[in-house]
């Protein structure tokens, strides 16, 4: 692994960690969802960096597919969050607690 790639992979690891911590600690469903998107983009950065390191295009092509999947996920996710928000007037992930144990 060249030094150049290492830097990008470390940056992607940092972004991934920020995303993960955000999902685990934030309470607003929209922010949680944005943190998930950050995790996907961290993976994209790693894929592109590794793709350049190995000298093939597999990683870059995968990054495009990930972007499409992320867009589809936004559609589904915002629809679900919207219905919850309209019913309860809150997008907090702590508020709905009818399902327990």
């Amino acid at each position, binding site marked *: 692994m060249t030094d150049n790639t290492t830097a990008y992979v470390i940056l992607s690891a940092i972004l991934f960690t920020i995303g993960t911590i955000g999902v685990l600690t934030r309470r607003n469903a929209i922010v949680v969802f944005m943190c998930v998107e950050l995790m996907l983009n961290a993976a994209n950065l790693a894929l592109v960096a590794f793709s350049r390191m190995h000298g093939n295009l597999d990683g870059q092509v995968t990054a495009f597919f990930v972007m499409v999947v992320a867009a589809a996920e936004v559609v589904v996710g915002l629809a*679900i969050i919207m219905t919850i928000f309209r019913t309860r007037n809150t997008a907090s992930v702590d508020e709905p607690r*009818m*399902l327990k144990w």
Partner: protein
Amino acid sequence: MFESPGISYATLWPVLLVLGVACAGVVVEAFAPRAARFNAQVFLALAGLAAALAGTVIVGAGPSLGVSTGEGALIVDGPGVFSQGLVLLVSLGGVALFAERRLDNGVSAFAGQAAALPGTPAERTASQRGLEHTEVYPLMMFAVGGMMLFCVSGDLLMLFVALEVLSLPLYLLTGLARRRRLLSQEAALKYFLLGAFSSGIFLYGLALVYGFAGSMSLAEIGEVAAEEGSSPLLLLGIGLMAVGLLFKTGAVPFHSWTPDVYQGAPTPVTAWMSAATKIAAFAAMLRLFYVAFGAEGDIWRPAIGVVAVLTMLLGASFAVVQTDVKRMLGYSAVAHTGFLLTGLLGVQTDAFGSTQAVLFYLTAYGFATLGSFAIVSLVRGPNGEAGALDRWAGLGRTNPWVAATFAVFLLSMAGLPLTAGFIGKWGVFAAALGAGQWPVVVVAIGSSIIAIFFYVRMIMLMFFTDPSEDAAAVVTPSYATTIVIALSAVATVLLGVIPGPVLSLLVDAGGFIG
């Protein structure tokens, strides 16, 4: 110079047919008048699934089995085609349950208008006009297409795309219940957020594995891993990908969504997805771990063993204290994931190895769970399904046939002899013992005993307890649901009494190839 990859349409047409039917369903939704949609959608879905099922049989019996197509993106091999067939079989049952309209005064189990807020005049109007969402059929077809691709994915990219194609429709279907809509929406939110989180983790693991091997193909990753030995990059990648798949299968500590979603989702959706998702996820998991990470077995086997032990113990113990039938079955599904993971600890052999054991267990469990949730949808009170356990008391006296059929499914899930579940459990335990994993098998036998306790307690409740004041009644369903329940019960008993044909079919199918 770019060369387009060759695609073997002869082996892939069942998948393409299902996805084509899904697109046709969207067109019907857009152009057909409202009154005609229900019949058109149900016909399309049933015909498409039946034709695809026939297709998997033809592909499975044909000479082209075992081809790698699309530059290795899809591997159509014996176990892959078997699990595709199994997914299609339970999905046929799923469509029949989706189409059930006799249980709730002539409307389906899905929300009349998902956009109308619960408890508003808009919702009442939608209900009075008898509106229903027929979009559920195309959504289901897209999920089935994703599951079929997941079973035969030969590279990491296809694995990820198939995972998302099967997951996204499931999130939506979970939130579409007609009754108890707040519960259903909450379940959908939890499922979606945790599902998206786990697929993010899965994707990062995928990127690290690609960084290690320099290839997306599972077979090439396996070769590189065998040559170069393990590196931190690979191990981290395996760990993160395992988290993603363990989430989908509902293993401890990633199980928390399972009981919530099983309880909140419309019961036909629960019945279908508890069977189909598990089949697809385990088929993909076996291929990933045996083909790509086979060389690292010494490292992942102990870790998966610990997860299996925790999953079985927690699933069975929590199921004991539940007071809601759907939730109890949800925790029982968690316990079954543990038993299946026990099977994963074994090794692939030419004869009856762990691949065959796990696939047989999935067959047995698939029919039992489909049938048992179908029965849950029949037992109702004035406000919809009677979930609370105490309202099931005395059901065996008022409706002996329904209770007896439910008992058959419960006994199979408990793993008693002469039911399919017994052969399934015996198979996965033998596979794990063959790989020297006896401590896990000891725990598995202990958890089976805990599990027998709550299954038998349910049977005692139905047959030997007096009915309570607000006891639930059994509503007579349409022929479709009756046939699904009857066929599931027959399959559960037949697979237990004469498992030979299916076992030899599985041995002929062989192992997963790269």
